[in-house]
């Protein structure tokens, strides 16, 4: 049985070690904020942080996680306070259907942790998540707003 550290809590996951982290989170642990979009690390809907690194959890088998500390969308807000990315998303009314936004927000939070004042080119390079509703313009604006916050 694997022991995972997710959002600062320990979880036991009694599943096949080859199971992608995405499905461990969603099916075994009930953390459904991390979304299934493609299963081949193309769309980014399943983005979580492992030791702070934005990672597409559909392509990471459970056995590869080791003792990496996982943060999911459910754990991004700390002490009841929205993360500045979530706050900027709220202020800019970013989501449409919202399905890709967990991954978008996790990718943006990782970008800002690495580059507190990203340029548009930085955003283009880091934000490769797919949004079919087409929220890119609002996502860009919200990342700049979060950087200023």
């Amino acid at each position, binding site marked *: 049985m694997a022991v995972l550290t997710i959002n600062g809590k320990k979880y036991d996951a009694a599943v096949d070690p080859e199971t992608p982290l995405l499905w461990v989170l*969603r099916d075994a642990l009930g953390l*459904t904020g991390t979304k299934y979009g493609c299963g*081949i690390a193309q*769309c980014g809907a399943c983005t979580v942080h492992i030791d702070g690194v934005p990672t597409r959890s559909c392509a990471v088998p459970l056995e590869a996680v080791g003792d990496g500390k996982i943060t999911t969308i459910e754990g991004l807000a700390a002490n009841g306070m929205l993360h500045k990315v979530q706050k900027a*998303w709220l202020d800019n009314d970013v*989501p449409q259907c919202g399905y890709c936004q967990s991954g978008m927000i996790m990718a943006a939070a990782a970008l800002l942790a690495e580059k507190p004042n990203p340029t548009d080119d930085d955003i283009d390079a880091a*934000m490769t998540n797919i949004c079919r509703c087409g929220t890119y313009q609002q*996502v860009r604006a919200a990342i700049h707003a979060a950087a200023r916050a």
Partner: protein
Amino acid sequence: MTAIASMDRRSFLVSAAAGGLSLGFGIPAGTAQVAGAVREINAWVVVHPDDRVVIRIARSEMGQGTLTGLAQLVAEELECDWSKVSTEFPTPGQNVARNRVWRNFSTGGSRGIRESHEYVRQGGAAARTMLVAAAAKRWNVPAGECTAANSVIRHAPSGRTLAYGAVAAEAAQLEAPAAVVLKDIKDWKIAGKGVKRLDTAEKLNGSLVYGLDLRLPNMLTATIRQCPVAGGKLKSFAGAKVAGMPGVRKVVAVDGNAVAVVADSYWQAHKAIEALPVDWDLGPGAKTSSATIDAMLKEGLTAENAFVGTRIGDAKTALAGAAKTVEAVYSYPYQNHAPMEPMNATALYTADRCEVWAPTQNGESALAAAAEAAELPVAKCDVHKMMLGGGFGRRGRSDYVRQAVLIAKQVPGVPVKLVWSREEDMMHCAFHPVTQCKLTGGFDAAGNLTGLHMRISGQSILASLAPQNMQNGMDPVVFQGLNAGGTEGQFGYDIPNLLVDHAMRNPHVLAGFWRGVNLNHNAIYVECFMDELARAAGIDPLEFRRRYLKPKHRAVLEAAAAGAGYGKAAPGVHHGLAQIMGFGSYVAACAEVSVTGGKLKIHRIVAATDPGVVVNPAQVERQVSGSFVYGLSAALHGECTVKDGVIEQTNFDTYPVLRMDEMPKVETILVPSGGFWGGVGEPTIGVAAPAVLNAIFAATGKRIRSLPVSKHDLRTV
């Protein structure tokens, strides 16, 4: 957002715990009891004793913002405190039980607001009238002396006030007013304003439960594999080979054309279905390829027989006598909706009841599909509508609902969530139809455009999905944006002789309603060809169009051109124009592109929309910029091809879509002219591609007549 459950006509108790919620939606314990004996004022409005207002939304929310817009319209007439408003979806079963009090649940064709604005506002106005009447009754004063604003009823002569919550129970007992007068739009305080969406907070922390996220006690998860060729059949499968795999509960046939594995978890089901040996009867469709479809459509371009959609004057005679003619052939490939949330539905079947939880654009057709698959009366079935992770027309079909019920029937008493893989989703869509178009335009000796013939050849959506709606074999939807008149999508140019006809050619691949529908290719055909005609006439494309455009069409085009500074582009930057009318709205775009060393950069698109009335300008702006992402995804990259009857693109690696780095700056101009209600979710998709294609021509002199652009030696990244 919550779902609501059992309700009778007048004595409806809003018990938030009812129905699906009690099964474990993640509603905090205790919520159920809070409501107590709260009564609905009418079908649209519930007012709680603490003044919270719940507005019922019949249409589905899939990101387009209809939920918020409809709530604004009800709240406007209700005169309630917007900060106290939340929403809920009645179920289709409740709609049936209450004689369709919420009317149409179908959410497509950009119809959510434009086709229900009147009756939802009347619902809000009726509720306000009843609340005021209840207060007046309590005060024993004439209702005419009372006014309502911000959820408070005031009797000016005496200075007394009562909050909505205080009189809600009494108001609920009153008869509905026979008639109500709606507010003048100029007096709107909530509607017409760019208020924020009501459904954002739970999309930011992972707490919103989409269909795919539903968890019910003892739930099993199924995944499906369908015959790779549309129309093919399931011959046999070796279920025993995977029955022993971890978590596998059952392997079942579905509808004679698919097989499903039911397991404890998705990944277990997925591994098993990958390992499952299946034998298919691929059927006649297996002989089809993109090349055979192309040839089939080409033949239609010159075929003798065609359905006439629009005929003004005598185009053939005008063209035969023209001093100069111009001809071109365009084509548009299959596209996949590819909503981010793959198809899914959860069903719980027992011998006398069937419940479904589904992200659906059409709750009532989902209910009908569930009842048919369950072989139960509609009254013994219901569908709980979940938030949609994108719809774009795909979720107007109920194929996945039917499958979920057929699978659940084979595991009675246990809820089964059917989850399609992305690969199944990509291969088993009802695709954006494939069409070609031959256009012939004729000028007289003075250089006036006197005739135009558009021959469309290709697939009919209605023939695929709704043959009962065809008119003597004709699919009238084919002529979107090309109609001789009407309020839905009239052809924008006054040309004395116009003929638009359709040679229907239906390959075996299903065609479906894809955001923008037939407007997508029709706008390309008309607007790129108008550009060609302008160039042939030696006239600037804006000036050429202005000569022939009807006033409202011309006004939006001029607004877009002015907004973009048309004709004053910086060196190396080029403009392209397009206009169209669709879904009841007039739209136009001016795209600004540069092409350097084979690299296309779309810098900016300025889009103008005249939807008549704007309910929420901030959300319209988001629909417009989002529509360009959808339209440009298809125009730049999108193409579903067919080999041996099978769709070849199976995921986002082979069906690329627009990402952040290709996103142009979108500027939205709203020019509502009043007097009509048009849609906004779809029309601007139509102008995305032709504006960009015309700008590419301006930049390169190269006319692209087939999509995607990526096939034409142009890179975008």
